[in-house]
């Protein structure tokens, strides 16, 4: 390579390294804020690295797994409540898990089921019965990166059914002013 090209290469390379360093530092500084959601244990104990804690009444997102057996649906309306625990791999639920209860009124996404990853958007509240809870205005399903044909999934003991709604439940949505 001739000296002029070498100089140009050095210049381009140093500009690039400089910019990447700046981006890296900015991202590092922002890294806590880029997180989409709090996990249940982060809500009760604060974020692991910064100790940042959500305060009561604050609008936050919570992400976790729906604890099996915790989903309670009101037969008359679209009100639903369920507990979320931290997402762990492999998925196991223990009684000692920290859970946060989510209250929601509305249609659940098709992927909602027990054991499913969920991100809920709402305000943090202290509920008389369940302690720290989220009054959610939006519930989103987070699915994993595993895809399986239905037959295979059944053989592995995994099955999925969409939530179904009765007419009465759906009508309550219209009358309650949504």
């Amino acid at each position, binding site marked *: 390579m001739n000296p002029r090209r070498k100089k140009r290469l050095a210049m381009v390379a140093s500009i690039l390294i400089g910019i990447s360093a700046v*981006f890296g530092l900015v991202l590092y500084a922002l890294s806590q804020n880029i997180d989409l959601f709090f996990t249940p244990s982060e809500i009760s104990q604060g974020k692991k690295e910064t100790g940042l804690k959500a305060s009561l009444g604050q609008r936050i997102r919570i992400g976790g797994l729906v604890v099996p057996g915790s989903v309670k649906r009101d037969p008359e309306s679209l009100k639903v409540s369920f507990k979320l625990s931290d997402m762990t791999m492999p998925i196991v639920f223990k009684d000692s898990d920290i859970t946060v209860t989510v209250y929601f009124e509305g249609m659940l996404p098709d992927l909602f089921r027990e054991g499913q990853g969920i991100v809920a958007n709402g305000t943090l509240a202290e509920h008389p019965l369940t302690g720290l809870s989220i009054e959610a205005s*939006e519930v989103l399903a987070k*699915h994993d990166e595993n895809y399986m*044909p*239905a037959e295979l999934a059944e053989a592995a003991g995994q099955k999925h059914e969409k939530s179904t709604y009765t007419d009465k439940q759906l009508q309550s949505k219209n009358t309650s002013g949504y």
Partner: protein
Amino acid sequence: MWKWLHPYANPEVSYHLTNKLLPWLSALAAIFLSIGLVWALLFAPADYQQGDSFRIFYVHVPAASLSMGIYFAMAIAAFSSLVWQLKLADASAAAMAPVGAAFTAIALITGAAWGKPMWGTWWIWDARLTSELILLFLYLGVIALHNAFEDKNLAGKAAGILTLVGVVNIPIIKYSVDWWNTLHQGSTVSKLGRPSMSLDMLWPFIVCFIGFSLLVAVIISLRFRNEILARNSIRPWVRELVKNHTR
């Protein structure tokens, strides 16, 4: 060290080489895409959780990974154009930008159409989706800069610098799902060694992916050919070619 590249760096040779490759590339792309899409839509099994909405996977994932792949290729072209002042590298970078932008847009649209029924929302500002949107803006900026200057060398230089600055976004897109909490799930196919998918779902994906990649090659070749002509319009060989074409 670059001596062997020399004959290919000649615009006339490249133009004719591209012309010769195009019919083959087009035929292969048509074959792979038609087999892949029919397989994906009709024969691939539905997912146990997502049902048939899972079929969006077969356009969404190839589009998303190609949107990053094309950017990476464009960055290499921009780099060699800035350092070695290869004019052809500039032409190829200019040819790639609109194709990359189109595939980024496709990834975003199909992602939204998949997210609505599965997650429950068309859009969410999580790290993966936001960084992919930034990729679209980077592409649009590069296209705008290529067209902003009358002098193609100056335009190439400006667009090249933006391209290289934007490269930092590529690892951010790729690893956003590992570095941060996102609604978007982790990657399925590129998981080292063992994709999290059964084979009768994976095969149609591989065929679709090859098909879309070939289509990218076809469109980039078409645009590369145009760029070469536009940038060499005063050369005798182009004049000769134009005379033969318009007669």
